[in-house]
């Protein structure tokens, strides 16, 4: 009971946040009915997907201050489990998705525990290394389709068991449900004991240790949460695109993008990942659609995007949420 109360408890939100929260969810709910553009819907689906990734990253990277840069490996584990189970044994999504999550958690424990002896840069680069090893293995492993990737089998009729639909709206609402669940979970998480332990070790690891926080175990648990969010998002990616390959979902660029989304919005803050995704995803898609079509301007969209990242890092390292906090202080 206590837990359920905590999940829906938004009492500590500021007045503006209390207004924005229902408006935001109402907007998400009615969005598919406001437009017929499937491009806009795809942008919104990607917005929610990257919010989920970034919310997950926020648990280890934001609350715990451990910059993990290998999240694409968990996205890959989630996506590959769903895809392979469907191709090999015709397993429904609802069975393979939880299995993928369990595998991702297991893998995160296996690599997380030795890695959490490392601090700062060492940890960040080590997570990249592990992720690249996994990508290289998948790129050259015949059983999982090597670099060619895997196409998911098409079903004859739209199918809830295998999450295959003809209309984008179904995918939209399915992802919305996951997004809402993740949102509420993070609302509970930020008030949990683990979140306070992470906050303590982020501020000063030695002090937290001396006060009896099991640092390695706290980090490992937070990392498992990160892996869960990534794997769930990855499983959605597989059924949404119907095609996966290691370049698309296990590459370093995706890992970086996940971390950037959260850091741009504001690492460690509740709204940060969502703000980050709300800016980066539409920016990326619309700039790409607008400038990417012009051959002469190849790469300009990413230059604008990279420039923004540098400005944010130099001017307000707490991200956009930091700007909000500053504005609030001034009042």
């Amino acid at each position: 009971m206590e837990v359920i109360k905590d999940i829906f408890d938004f009492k500590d939100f500021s007045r503006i946040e209390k207004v924005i929260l229902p408006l935001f969810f109402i907007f998400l709910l009615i969005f598919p009915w406001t437009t017929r553009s499937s491009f806009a819907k795809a942008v919104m689906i990607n917005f929610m997907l990257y919010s989920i990734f970034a919310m997950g990253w926020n648990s280890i990277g934001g609350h715990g201050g451990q910059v993990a840069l290998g999240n694409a490996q968990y996205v890959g584990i989630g996506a590959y489990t769903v895809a392979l189970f469907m191709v090999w044994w015709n397993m429904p999504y609802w069975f393979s998705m939880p299995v993928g999550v369990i595998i991702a958690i297991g893998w995160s424990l296996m690599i997380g525990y030795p890695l959490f002896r490392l601090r700062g840069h060492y940890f960040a680069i080590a997570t990249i290394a592990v992720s690249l090893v996994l990508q290289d293995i998948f790129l050259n492993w015949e059983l999982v389709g090597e670099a060619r990737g895997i196409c998911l089998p098409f079903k004859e009729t739209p199918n809830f068991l295998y999450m295959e639909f003809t209309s984008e709206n179904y995918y939209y609402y399915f992802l919305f449900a996951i997004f809402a669940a993740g949102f509420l979970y993070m609302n509970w998480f930020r008030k949990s004991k683990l979140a306070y332990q992470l906050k303590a070790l982020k501020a000063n690891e030695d002090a937290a240790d001396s006060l009896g926080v099991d640092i390695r175990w706290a980090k490992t648990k937070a990392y498992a949460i990160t892996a869960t969010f990534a794997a769930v998002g990855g499983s959605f990616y597989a059924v949404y695109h119907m095609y996966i390959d290691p370049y698309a979902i296990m590459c370093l660029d995706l890992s970086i993008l996940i971390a950037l989304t959260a850091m741009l919005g504001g690492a460690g803050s509740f709204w940060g990942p969502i703000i980050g995704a709300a800016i980066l995803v539409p920016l990326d898609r619309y700039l790409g659609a607008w400038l990417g079509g012009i051959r002469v301007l190849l790469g300009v969209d990413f230059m604008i995007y990279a420039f923004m990242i540098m400005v944010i890092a130099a001017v307000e390292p707490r991200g956009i949420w930091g700007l909000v906090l500053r504005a609030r202080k001034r009042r």
Partner: protein
Amino acid sequence: MGVLVSQALVSGILMGLVFSLIALGLTIIFGVMNIVNFAHGEFLMIGMYAAYWSAVILSMEPLLTLPIAAAVGFALGIASYYLLVRHLLRGPMIAQLLGTFGLMLFLRYLALFIFGPNFKTLSKGILIGKTSMMGPVVIDWSKFFIGLLSLAGFLLVYWLISYTKTGKALLATSIDAEAASYMGIKTEWMNGLAWGLGGATVGIAGALLTNFYYVYPTIGMLFCMLAFATVALGGFGSIKGAFLAGLIIGLIETFFGQFVSSELKFAVIYALYFIVVALRPEGMFGWK
């Protein structure tokens, strides 16, 4: 079999010398100011393009483009420091990562915008395409001299840091920046110099690589990761460590690539890196 082994040994050592030179810049920057430069691979890419275009446009001998690439790398390093990195230092580590990532993406797509996505290789040059036999072992001239030049470049920088006054000031800053500033060392300039020096060494490495490697805008990632692995293996901030680790990684790359699987050779290097940092986070010669 004996021939294959000695062939792999020779190419491994030669490639390793290049890896050492690439990693040198990264380890200098890290040693002096405790920042990991994620744009390091992009610095290399820009050094490669600088060498490529000056060789093509001015129809220069590729080896003579070394000073140009070094100057471009130096300027790039200094500019990065004063325009960006200096402002990142106030923030937490996360801001530094974010900032150098931004720089990495920016340089990569700037190169894509200016130079286009195509692979470029040099076809003319005194070293290009020439080989000779040393007993049964085939020696590619470009790789051989580039290995030697990498070694020379490495030794030059090592000498600069260990024996000149500026180098000693740099070393002092890396050991304790605050104490160094009390001794009258301008640490701000030392930081800038570290970035300039880092950029120059990796620019030279890029110009050398252009003699036998193709260049394209996204090449930086692979070499950046290899440089990270090299630096971590040798110990962050350690120059001797970077040298030895570069050789080790060059040997692993060629031996594994030749005798086991050429697709998985980089995976093995990353895995080795993972094992080393998990067992001994400070690397072989690290002191930070």
